[in-house]
């Protein structure tokens, strides 16, 4: 029971991170029908920018640490959003009318470019986050000790998701995004600037991915320039699991995948941990390609 609870909390923390990345995939896919392969590398960029800011802001002096981490995450989100926006303008916008495959290859090119840019700037070796930023204490929940870090990571991702959810559902800009996701042409006729909506999606998605990058750095303590694609692929799996294009679906899919993976690693096999996510992916596509919350869409064969 103790082990189950530990794995559950671990799964929820990691799942929250997956969910944050998945939101970027699902928003872009919802509006553009494009798998943004570079999204995982924007997440990596977030992790590295976080590291740079931590060391340059000298956060480990423990002066207003909580506030410091908050500011740090917001700064990283802003910076990654800028890179995401630049990517949209240079790599994706010119291809909007082109065949789908060219956009896929451009996305892969962007992914390779970003990954290697990070490698050239920060070096190819693993980089380590300072270990003393957040307290490494455990708290007792229902009589079981849980690392505080897990609770913080999980809460942070829930807060970010809640903000996004409210923004998408309660504001005009959010409504515009939802409208463009349903039908770009009709949205344009209703006076929505679809180009702006798409740019917006490429600012918000990467910002969330960047925040997830910082969280991975804080949680695992280690980051590498190649980590983006595995996280990216798993987050994409989460997005499909929840129903691609569906925002609550991405959140649910992320948390679910995190928990499945954590329990699978504990009770089935640690060596096959990464394979479990892909197995889930294949099963869901065979059984229910629209995902858990996805609606049946008209089949564009």
């Amino acid at each position, binding site marked *: 029971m103790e082990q189950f609870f530990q794995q559950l909390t671990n799964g929820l923390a990691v799942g929250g991170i997956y969910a944050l990345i998945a939101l970027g995939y699902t928003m872009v896919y919802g509006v553009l029908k494009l798998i943004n392969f570079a999204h995982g590398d924007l997440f990596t960029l977030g992790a590295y920018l976080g590291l740079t800011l931590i060391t340059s802001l000298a956060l480990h002096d423990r002066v207003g640490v909580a506030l410091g981490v908050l500011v740090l995450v917001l700064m990283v989100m802003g910076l990654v959003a800028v890179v995401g926006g630049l990517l949209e303008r240079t790599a994706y916008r010119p291809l909007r009318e082109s065949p789908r495959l060219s956009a896929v290859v451009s996305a892969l090119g962007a992914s390779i470019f970003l990954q290697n840019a990070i490698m050239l700037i920060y070096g190819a070796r693993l980089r380590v986050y300072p270990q003393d930023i957040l307290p490494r204490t455990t708290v007792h929940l229902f009589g079981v000790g849980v690392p505080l870090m897990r609770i913080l990571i999980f809460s942070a991702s829930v807060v970010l998701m809640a903000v996004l959810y409210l923004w998408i559902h309660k504001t005009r800009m959010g409504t515009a995004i939802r409208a463009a996701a349903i039908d770009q042409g009709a949205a344009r006729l209703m006076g929505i600037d679809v180009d702006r909506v798409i740019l917006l999606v490429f600012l918000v998605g990467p910002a969330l991915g960047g925040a997830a990058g910082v969280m991975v750095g804080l949680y695992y303590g280690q980051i590498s320039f190649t980590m983006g694609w595995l996280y990216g692929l798993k987050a994409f799996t989460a997005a499909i699991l929840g129903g691609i294009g569906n925002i609550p679906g991405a959140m649910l899919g992320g948390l679910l995948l995190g928990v499945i993976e954590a329990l699978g690693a504990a009770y089935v096999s640690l060596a096959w941990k990464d394979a479990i996510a*892909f*197995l889930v992916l294949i099963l869901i596509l065979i059984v229910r390609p629209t995902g858990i919350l996805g609606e049946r869409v008209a089949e564009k064969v």
Partner: protein
Amino acid sequence: MTRRTKIGVAVAVAGLAAAPAVLNPYWVDVLNSVGLYGLLALSLNVILGDAGMYNMGHAAFYAVGAYATAILNTRYGIPVLWTLPLAGLAAGAFAAVVARPVIHLRGDYLLIVTVGVGEILRIALVNDVFGLTGGPNGIFGIARPFVFGLKIRKPHQFYYLIWAFVALTVFVFHRLQHSRFGRALNYLRDDPVAAEGSGIPTGRYRLLAFVVGAAWAGMAGTLYATKMTIISPQSFSFWESVVVFMIVILGGAGNMAGVLLGAFLIVGLPEVFRGFASARLLVFGLVMMVMMVVRTQGLLPPRPRRFRLPDASG
């Protein structure tokens, strides 16, 4: 073939045949890599170019073929070239099993499933599944091939072996493209609904194209295994699939000359810039982005078929 194409093919063949005579072994080996990637890209082209199915897990079939050869040769002592058809069969059978339930998925979904399949296979290889694959270290000591009693060892000997197989592949796939089956695949790619409506058994043809492409990738795996004499899971990562995918799209999906040109540019050209090793991939990514923007259809897109009916409006 038009006269120009004939001359082009003749020049290309003559140039390739003479290449080892003027190049040093290093560059011959680079051309060997180009040939292997060319084979892989030609085999993916059947799936991606001709039938229009997004397969980004092609390295998995390459891996199955390479491992089939490695296991059959090192454990059972079967001469490498004899394992060639067996590797093709193994990769084709593997493709048939994994693709059967997902072959109906549309574009992006199929793409992501094939990525997943490739990754699961790689993890299986690392975990030494059935105790056959040697885990993360892979399998070493794969024998060299014998052709008419001659042991193939040096780069220029491999060169002729590999490129002869490329020539055979181009011949076979050219016949395939112009067969009833090949034409059906093109209809299927261009308009699946109309293809289904005109009586083409869409699902069966899609699966068949997938299996043929995979089987061919498996045989390319045999050549890779015997050339390297050592294989490990790292050789069959996701990025191998991505590179092959990019070769097909950059060269011109559906056009074999374009695909081979793509292999030269993506595998061969970076060797010229070896001096800038660390920045090479950065530039590669950038070039792919720029290429897609300025030449969306690839370098040599296939020409429309000549028997196409005139446009009703024109």
